């Protein structure tokens, strides 16, 4: 803080601190606290508010545990979010390595630009684009049948298939950047030293590159997983008849049922269980939170 004041002067420093505090308090902490309070109150007609029925209760949370369908959707959401995370990791690790260590820096810059341009388009539009690409009469099926790879069109938008594809596309860059940064920071001489000492390419990655990149990998995985589990647009747009996402249920409670109380309870359950799941995975992989923050 003193460093900040010394550098930018007192007024600018106070302004920066105030803006950060405003963002954190007014836009994150307070709304969440309000919803947290909602989640323990009942959804009552207006005339009963403040009456004898307006009490703190766990009933909203019990609703979830009494609904096998909702529990099922919840675990499917976790399962498919994990799947998306794994697919993203499998695609981005080699890509990040090539970008960081194989390509020339000028080529890397071009590559990043090409990767970033789609981000300028909104998530809804990009999801709709995939809806068109994946449809029965869409370009993907046309190309695949055209080059003779498949005989008849595949129904892509069925089950969780299209949702997984859409989510991988939507969040893959959140995996790429942390891993790229981590690998880029690795001294190339270490890779060469490993090779020089007789290690195969695979062994060099396993013993030298991956351990070094682990915080980046963990950070990317946490981000992609959380974004997936909390995503609304992609699962709604690319949904098939049998692919419900947990956020859709929350949305239904809040905007169709107008029951913000149960909706809040569901939202906090999702948050709590996601945090639990992520910390479990971090424990298993032996990664600390401070490593990720780097």
């Amino acid at each position, binding site marked *: 803080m003193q460093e900040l004041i010394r550098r930018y002067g007192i007024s600018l420093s106070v302004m920066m601190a105030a803006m950060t505090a405003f963002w954190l308090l007014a836009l994150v902490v307070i709304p969440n606290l309000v919803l947290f309070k909602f989640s323990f109150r009942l959804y009552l007609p207006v005339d009963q508010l403040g009456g004898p029925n307006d009490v703190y209760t766990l009933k909203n949370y019990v609703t979830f545990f009494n609904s096998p369908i909702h529990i099922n959707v919840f675990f499917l959401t976790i399962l498919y979010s994990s799947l998306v995370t794994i697919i993203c990791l499998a695609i981005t690790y080699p890509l990040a390595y090539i970008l960081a260590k194989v390509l020339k820096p000028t080529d890397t810059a071009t590559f990043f630009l090409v990767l970033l341009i789609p981000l300028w388009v909104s998530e809804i539009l990009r999801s709709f684009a995939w809806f068109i690409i994946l449809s029965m009469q869409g370009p993907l099926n046309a190309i695949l049948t055209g080059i003779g790879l498949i005989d008849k069109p595949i129904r892509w938008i069925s089950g969780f298939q299209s949702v997984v594809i859409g989510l991988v596309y939507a969040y893959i860059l959140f995996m790429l950047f942390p891993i790229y940064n981590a690998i880029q920071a690795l*001294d190339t*001489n*270490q890779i*060469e*030293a*490993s*090779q*020089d*000492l*007789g*290690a*195969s390419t695979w*062994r060099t990655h396993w*013993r*030298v590159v991956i*351990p*070094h990149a682990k915080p980046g990998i963990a950070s990317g995985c946490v981000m992609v997983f959380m974004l997936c589990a909390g995503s609304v647009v992609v699962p709604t747009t690319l949904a098939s008849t049998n692919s419900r996402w947990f956020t859709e249920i929350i949305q239904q409670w809040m905007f169709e049922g107008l029951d913000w109380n149960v909706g809040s309870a569901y939202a906090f359950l999702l948050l709590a269980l996601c945090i639990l799941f992520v910390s479990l995975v971090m424990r298993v992989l032996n990664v600390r939170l401070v490593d990720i923050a780097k």
Partner: protein
Amino acid sequence: MSEDVHLSQICMDFGSFRAVNNVEVTIKPGEFFSFLGPSGCGKTTILRLISGFMEPTQGAVKIGGKDMKGIRPNARPTALIFQNLALFPLMPVWENITFGLEVRGVSKEIRRAKAEELLQLVDLHDSADKRVSQLSGGQKQRVAIARALAVEPKVMLLDEPLSALDLKLRQHMRAELRAIQKRTGVTFIYITHDQGEALAMSDRVGVMSQGVLQQVATPQEIYNNPVNGFVASFVGENNVIAGKVTSVSGGMAQFETAKGSFQAKLDAAVGMGDEAKLFVRPEFCSLRPANEAKVNSIPVEVNEIAFEGNFVNVFVRDQAGDTHMVQMQNDPSVPPPAPHTACQMVFNPESCMILSEAATSRHGH
């Protein structure tokens, strides 16, 4: 235990730039060989060609008579010590040292024992379980050496590994490296721009400039009989005078310059009537009273005196304003002349040489 390394007419191009030009040298088994040259002379490229991180554009690298073409670094019988050492920071010291054995599938017990043994060899006890970050610069150096020795290389390649150390430690590690090399009998190929290191440690030195190997010889030979002007001025100090050869008789020549006429030994590459340079080392120069008539003398005035301890460097200026250096042993009974003393700098015809410029293609040797 060790193998010879034969660089057969090697060229290495980066685009249109030729980094290594027609280098031909055989490094004997068990030899301590240094490539010495200024930065950008191609010496690191040679090291990368031997270790396999690059393939030569032309020519061949042969280790123990076997052509290394197409053999990747992890399959070559070489071990490279990087300039920044490139130790693995996430592994403890002993795992660093035995990494090469780990990738060969050696069991943990054997590896651990081998690590202890190598730590003894490099004189670093009780450090097996330390983290790399806990070690000092010199200790890291030893771990890097142990790590390279663990894979029992036939040839050890060292890329200026002492450059990051402070002077005292550097001098100590020089002796240490030399001792380890003698103990293990492995062929050492050492890259450096530090002539002191190269001369003190090596059996033979190869001096490089602009991708061309200028001279390969023992340190004494390099210092006493440089083949050309580049070697003479890069290795050690020299007073240089430009001029022209006017007569030749029996290896000696008369050399006409703007500072007068001199007699000197003539290099075979320089002929009658050639423009060349005369090189004379400061320790072969002496100062005499101005009125004495001598061969090979230049009238000078003492400019500055630098007392170095065991010797004294006297900087003198001639009538054209050029500075020369005269080195004298420190002898309290014979103090150096005071500044502004007029005298003459003299040198023996046997101890100065007329040499051509650096070779720009391969020099015969």
